[in-house]
């Protein structure tokens, strides 16, 4: 068995990745008291052993457990079985709600992203269908992430209680409903504003407009194009040396 160690991924997040990437094998979760095996066939959960009650309820209980545990995945071909037809994203969100009720905010903090991370709602592949129950807070928090706001901005602007927002965020991230944007555009604006004031802000806007770049849909190609244009513009305004320093700062902070 090939063992690899992952940090900063939660038990729920790992399960969601295995399902979304249509893996087949056994997802093992071990606590000091027991060992649970979740059988996954091509991304569908087919069996949970041992399971004393309704599988969905049992899975929610495991994922919301505050006990110490370890988990690992054994990839193998399994016999075809009947899917339990669970929407893993819904299960994860429910587990996050249970964690909040149990006051387990401290435990989930290690799985959260830094506050300056900019997030956006994830896209799903075409054939995927999900059935999720959202609370208004969960929906509103998720919809606030438009690809241009950081976690800090959303929590402050939305007036959310920080602990509650963190638990909701844990659920949304683990369920894969929101994800990091590729580049921290907010950091870029912060740096240019710090270095050049409002004019820096104006330069970035001007270059994005000139190059027809949508900051919420920026890929690596557009980002490099933007950086190259910004370097030229900064060189015109403040000189080559300072321009290079600013671009290096931006690259370090936003990649």
């Amino acid at each position, binding site marked *: 068995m090939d063992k690899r160690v992952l940090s900063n991924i939660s038990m729920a997040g790992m399960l969601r990745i295995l399902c979304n990437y249509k893996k087949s094998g056994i997802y093992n979760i071990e606590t000091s008291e027991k060992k649970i095996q979740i059988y996954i066939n091509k991304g569908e959960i087919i069996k949970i052993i041992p399971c004393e009650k309704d599988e969905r309820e049992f899975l929610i209980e495991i994922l919301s457990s505050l006990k110490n545990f370890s988990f690992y995945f054994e990839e193998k071909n399994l016999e075809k079985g009947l899917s339990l037809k669970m929407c893993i994203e819904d299960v994860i969100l429910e587990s996050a709600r249970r964690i909040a009720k149990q006051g387990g905010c401290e435990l989930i903090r290690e799985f959260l992203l830094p506050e300056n991370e900019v997030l956006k709602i994830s896209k799903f592949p075409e054939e995927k269908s999900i059935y999720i129950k959202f609370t208004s807070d969960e929906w509103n928090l998720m919809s606030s992430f438009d690809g241009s706001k950081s976690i800090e901005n959303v929590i402050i602007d939305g007036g959310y209680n920080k602990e509650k927002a963190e638990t909701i965020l844990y659920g949304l991230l683990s369920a894969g409903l929101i994800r990091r944007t590729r580049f921290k555009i907010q950091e870029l604006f912060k740096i240019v504003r710090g270095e050049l*004031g*409002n*004019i820096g*802000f*104006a*330069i970035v*806007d*001007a270059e994005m*407009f*000139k190059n027809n770049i949508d900051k919420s849909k920026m890929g690596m190609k557009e980002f490099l194009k933007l950086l190259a244009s910004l370097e030229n*513009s900064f060189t*015109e*305004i403040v000189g080559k040396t300072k321009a290079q320093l600013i671009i290096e700062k931006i690259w370090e902070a936003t990649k």
Partner: protein
Amino acid sequence: MDQTLQFYTHIISIISGLLFWVGFFIFGIIAHKYSKVFNKQTFYLFMMTAPSGILVYSLLLIIKISINNPELNNVIQIIAYISFILSIIFTLIAILRFNFVLNLLLHYKGEK
């Protein structure tokens, strides 16, 4: 002595005319940079070309003294002064425009 001083004033007037032109030309270069980066009209061409009127003024005054024709002198003098004042007016317009653009940029808060 008089001729020496006259010669001195001629040279000084040409050099100062040229220097003013170069000085405003440099400001025009700076305005051009801002025009290029922000795609805003800064009238940099005015700033670069209009101050040539100062040099024209200096040259015309020298020509006036050299020719020493009273009828022509008045015409040359008027052309010199008009050229001078027009060049200053256009240069002033350009620098005021550049100042306006700088104000806009210094107070930019992201509105388009």
